[in-house]
């Protein structure tokens, strides 16, 4: 086996832990309870998938009646590539620069491009898995509804495989360049966070800047007629923001036996190869520069504090405060945790607020918001409460709280602090981040959609106990099976199965909560009464969940053998 193939194989095995999973399931015979749980989660996702497929089918019919069904493919490719471009950034930074195996890899006789390739393969495969539930149904629904020939079904996997390469390679190039630039001086972590935000903002504004420039919005009747009078009108209009989406659409729809299809393939595959090649060349020149600097000791003898310098010794903090402070410091000083956790909670509402801004007044996005905030007060309160709770809790801070400790978990086991107090400190920290999310969501709703205090206060009253309940639940999920053995901090958060399980359960719970809210709304009770009932219910649930979590901590902590 060639060194490159061996390295890629080892990286994939290390990341996905196939050997460890096999060993745990079949040799140690541990974690077998996870098999039915995962199967249950998959079965639980089936109704959502069915609903999604029905929506796609309806969208196809609607677009087909206008002769614009091909735009569904363009939208699928565009959405997939944009998601990868934005969310792949942090993932690439974590995998390229913060994996703990990098120092070891540096000592091996490997080229930078070989190391980069192995890391890229890990990210790529993860992206295939992430995209699958969103993109594959679109491609399959399109193929079935359009009665496509076997050629389509052969080209579909090829297109799917090529799909993440362009955005990931482009993001990779930006990350490699940024890391080389910021890897100077002592404030590397701060520069990495700032640099990541700049890249993210650039990707975001490029997207919406192009979207505005393309002039797709606006209720101009002539434009709409022109758009639908050409078979590719909507495809062209949507894809103008990102031409590879048009090329992929042509490749899929026309096949490889037509000039248009071959041209689409040549352009789509060509750009993928070009960007990937560019990344490898960039890696060869810049990767080690960005990496070697990171592993250098920034506190050399010349830079260390002067002898006799005053050392700040604290005296007698309460253990809960001490652990809370530890949680805050570890999260804020680990760029990947900070970007995914704290900034994730703050930025999601900001993006949401910015999204309708890109379109002109009177378009769909503005209409939806107007509908939510003005038509039915109860629906508006429910929608805004759920928005606040989602922004506050879906960052994965609570559902990775124990996993983030990693191999340092032994400290939590040996310190003489009641496990309940340790969990309380973690709950307070997670709630602190949740409050940031609620604050950011409130600001987005107030500034962008003119949410007034009269509506905000009931939303807040409902969101706070709901967040406490969801956060307690998420902490319990991570406590049940913390992922303590990781080499990349990304694995402790975004690649952590606990975060995914928690997200699915949270969404399921919020769906049921919303359903109950709407059902009670139809009973004829006043708005104030319904809010009162749900406030009391949420408070009760939060209290129960909190006390249950403390009891669970007492049982679970001793048996975690990190």
């Amino acid at each position, binding site marked *: 086996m060639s060194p490159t193939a061996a390295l890629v194989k080892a990286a994939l095995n290390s990341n996905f832990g196939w050997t460890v999973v096999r060993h745990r399931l079949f*040799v*140690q*015979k*541990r974690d077998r309870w996870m098999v039915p749980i995962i199967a249950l989660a998959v079965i639980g996702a089936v109704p959502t998938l069915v609903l999604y497929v029905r929506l796609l089918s309806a969208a196809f019919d609607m677009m087909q009646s206008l002769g614009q069904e091909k735009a569904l493919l363009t939208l699928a490719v565009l959405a997939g590539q944009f998601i990868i471009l934005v969310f792949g950034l942090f993932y690439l930074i974590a995998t390229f620069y913060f994996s703990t195996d990098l120092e070891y890899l540096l000592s091996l006789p490997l080229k930078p491009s070989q190391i980069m390739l192995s890391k890229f393969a890990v990210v790529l495969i993860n992206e295939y898995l992430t995209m699958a539930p969103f993109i594959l149904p679109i491609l399959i629904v399109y193929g079935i509804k359009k009665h496509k020939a076997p050629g389509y079904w052969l080209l579909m996997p090829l297109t799917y495989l090529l799909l993440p390469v362009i955005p990931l390679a482009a993001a990779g190039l930006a990350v490699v360049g940024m890391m080389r630039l910021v890897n100077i001086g002592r404030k590397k972590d701060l520069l990495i966070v700032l640099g990541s935000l700049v890249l993210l903002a650039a990707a975001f504004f490029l997207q919406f800047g192009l979207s505005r420039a393309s002039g797709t919005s606006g209720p101009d009747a002539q434009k709409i007629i022109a758009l639908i009078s050409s078979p590719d009108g909507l495809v062209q209009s949507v894809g103008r923001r990102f031409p590879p989406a048009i090329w992929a659409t042509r490749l899929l729809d026309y096949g490889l036996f037509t000039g248009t299809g071959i041209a689409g393939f040549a352009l789509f595959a060509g750009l993928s190869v070009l960007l990937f090649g560019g990344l490898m060349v960039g890696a060869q020149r810049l990767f080690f520069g960005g990496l070697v600097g990171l592993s250098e*000791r*920034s*506190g050399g*003898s010349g*830079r*260390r*504090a*002067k*002898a*006799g*310098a005053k*050392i*700040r*010794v*604290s*005296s*007698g*903090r*309460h*253990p809960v*405060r*001490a*652990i809370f*402070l*530890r949680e805050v*410091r*570890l999260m804020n*000083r*680990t760029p990947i945790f900070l970007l995914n956790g704290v900034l994730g909670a703050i930025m999601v509402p900001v993006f949401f607020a910015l999204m309708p801004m890109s379109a002109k007044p009177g378009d769909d996005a503005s209409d939806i918001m107007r509908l939510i905030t003005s038509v039915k007060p109860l629906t508006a309160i429910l929608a805004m409460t759920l928005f606040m709770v989602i922004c506050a809790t879906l960052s994965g801070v609570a559902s990775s709280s124990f996993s983030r400790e990693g*191999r*340092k978990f*032994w*400290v939590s*086991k*040996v*310190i*003489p*602090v*009641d496990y309940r107090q340790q969990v309380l400190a973690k709950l307070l920290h997670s709630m602190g981040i949740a409050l940031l999310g609620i604050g950011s969501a409130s600001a987005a709703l107030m500034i962008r959609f003119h949410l007034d205090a009269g509506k905000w206060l009931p939303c807040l009253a409902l969101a706070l106990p709901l967040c406490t309940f969801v956060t307690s639940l998420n902490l319990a999920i991570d406590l049940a099976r913390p992922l303590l053995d990781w080499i990349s901090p990304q694995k402790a958060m975004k690649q952590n199965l606990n975060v995914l399980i928690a997200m699915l359960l949270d969404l399921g719970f919020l769906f049921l909560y919303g359903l109950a809210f709407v059902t009670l709304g139809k009973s004829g009770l006043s708005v104030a009464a319904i809010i009162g009932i749900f406030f009391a219910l949420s408070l009760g649930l939060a209290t129960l969940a909190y006390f249950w979590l403390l009891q669970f901590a007492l049982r679970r902590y*001793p*048996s975690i*053998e*990190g």
Partner: protein
Amino acid sequence: MIEIDHVSKSYNKGAVRAVDDLTLTVHPGEIFGFLGPNGAGKTTTIKLIVGILKADGGTIRISGLDIRTAALRCKAMTAYVPDEPEIYERLKGIEYLNFIGDVYGVSGVDRRERIGHWLEAFELSRAVADPIQTYSHGMRQKIILTAALMINPRVLVLDEPMVGLDPRSSHFLKEAMRQHCDGGGTLFFSTHIMEVAERLCDRIGIIHKGRLAACGTLAELRDQAKDKASLENIFLELTGS
């Protein structure tokens, strides 16, 4: 005092017995050296004593208290130094020491005095304000040792504490270990360095395949062995190496 009474621990659903019916007692004022080949069960035993692992059977008592029923009180009088210095890299040295001081309830006056003393001894005074991620392996080991000694516990449990230490720090640590026991404390430590065990320990236990192969003073171990030349020879004979 540490009392280990018929303690067992296995992995892989009983397929691997890491510690097998282990019984031993370490008395106050005693330095107990725990020796054994790689994979013999030293680290597992130590992790069982400090509560990181849960025993399958048997009892462990610290100063007469069962670690299962009085876990917090046992932990409050025990300090542990692991074989791998895995600690919070994103904290500064002084932040880690303050964290440990806070959770063990060390007063401000004691903390200042002991931290100053041990930082000086381990030559960490300049580095303590820097993030731990900038420390070498030995420096990380020394900051964990400083934290353990700052607590001034009744029971010290050290897993291969000399690994990675420079000769000066090693010397100070050995002095600290002796002082700790002269003051009535209990010390349980594992090592692979026979000379250290020979010179420092009041009693030595040799573990092999999870079972206690021998236990006693150096003189007692010599009596049990055919080749009495050195502890190394005794070790090799008892462990069948």
